């Protein structure tokens, strides 16, 4: 019989002591002894949330991996993608090594940026997401700083836009993908070249902001169309 306790217990075995496991299952109450296939989606999410906080506390080093395994057992995630599926960063050979494609760990968040007041809250949201993902203290500050820059650019140059935070992970690393999008005036290709060549400075320092973001992140991509808007995608990677 596949109960929550037996399935999750086998995942946590070796990483979290039996005593601690028992106290985790005690907190889950009746749900721990329920059969996996009888659980409602709501229950599954509740169990996952409880497990996430415990795992982070008791097995921080392996938390990302354990959380993903628990989510998979609770059928909150699909099976790992088949080998050969396009990996998000092919250069690291994830697909070739039979690695799973990055999977979502936690909800994607879309933050509306409508004015100066939203800059501080976006920064705070990004920071807590980075901490939740278990990224290092320095990386978390870098995440908050990059989001601060991106949010400022939106407010100063487009008026409004959105910043999306997408927590992901594969077997190798934890990733926080950040996408800043607006429908502002956009940046002409020549200007964009000048910004990254370091020869362009706007009055309020947009050039500097974009260059700073590019230097802080592990992956960076900008797509801007004059008259249509700008989209900046970047990724912070964290070791697992």
């Amino acid at each position, binding site marked *: 019989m596949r109960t929550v306790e037996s399935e999750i217990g086998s995942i946590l075995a070796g990483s979290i002591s039996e005593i601690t496991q028992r106290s985790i299952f005690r907190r889950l109450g009746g749900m721990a002894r329920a059969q996996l296939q009888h659980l409602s989606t709501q229950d599954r999410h509740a169990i996952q949330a409880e497990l996430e906080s415990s795992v982070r506390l008791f097995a921080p080093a392996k938390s990302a991996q354990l959380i993903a395994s628990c989510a998979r057992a609770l059928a909150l995630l699909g099976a790992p993608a088949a080998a050969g599926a396009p990996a998000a960063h092919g250069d690291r050979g994830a697909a070739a090594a039979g690695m799973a494609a990055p999977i979502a760990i936690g909800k994607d968040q879309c933050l509306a940026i409508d004015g100066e007041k939203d800059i501080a809250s976006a920064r705070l949201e990004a920071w807590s997401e980075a901490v939740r993902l278990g990224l290092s203290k*320095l990386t978390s500050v870098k995440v908050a*700083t990059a989001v601060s820059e991106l949010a400022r650019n939106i407010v100063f140059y487009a008026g409004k836009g959105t910043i999306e935070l997408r927590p992901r992970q594969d077997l190798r690393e934890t990733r926080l993908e950040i996408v800043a999008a607006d429908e502002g005036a956009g940046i002409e290709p020549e200007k964009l070249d000048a910004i990254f060549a370091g020869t362009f400075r706007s009055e309020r320092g947009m050039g500097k902001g974009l260059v*700073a973001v590019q230097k802080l992140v592990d992956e960076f991509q900008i797509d801007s169309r004059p008259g249509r808007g700008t989209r900046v995608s970047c990724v912070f990677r964290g070791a697992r």
Partner: protein
Amino acid sequence: MKPRDEQELPIIRIRDCLLVSIQIELHDRLALELQTALAERVRSQGVRGVILDVTWVEVIDSYITRILNDIGKSVRFMGADCYIVGIRPAVAMTLVEMGVELDAVSTALSLDAALEKLEPRR
């Protein structure tokens, strides 16, 4: 608490220096007001230096850096020194990585250290 539009940063006189502890979000108008107020008080009170305490600032991006640097420049133009104190370790490392310049201000580890540099005891 005052509405955001009316917030201001108190400027405190310590010995021959002016101290501002930055504890609220710096935005354009506030930054300009602070820069103006500091310049006026440097002149009227004949201080030696201005100390900006950023102990409570958890994130310093390129925009904030530019504001701090501009304040430093105007204070220096008037003949006083400008010190930034309390930059957090992670913030310092982030600033290095971003490659931003903070060249119009001096830095010190703490308020005491800045005061000591500005007014060495004989």
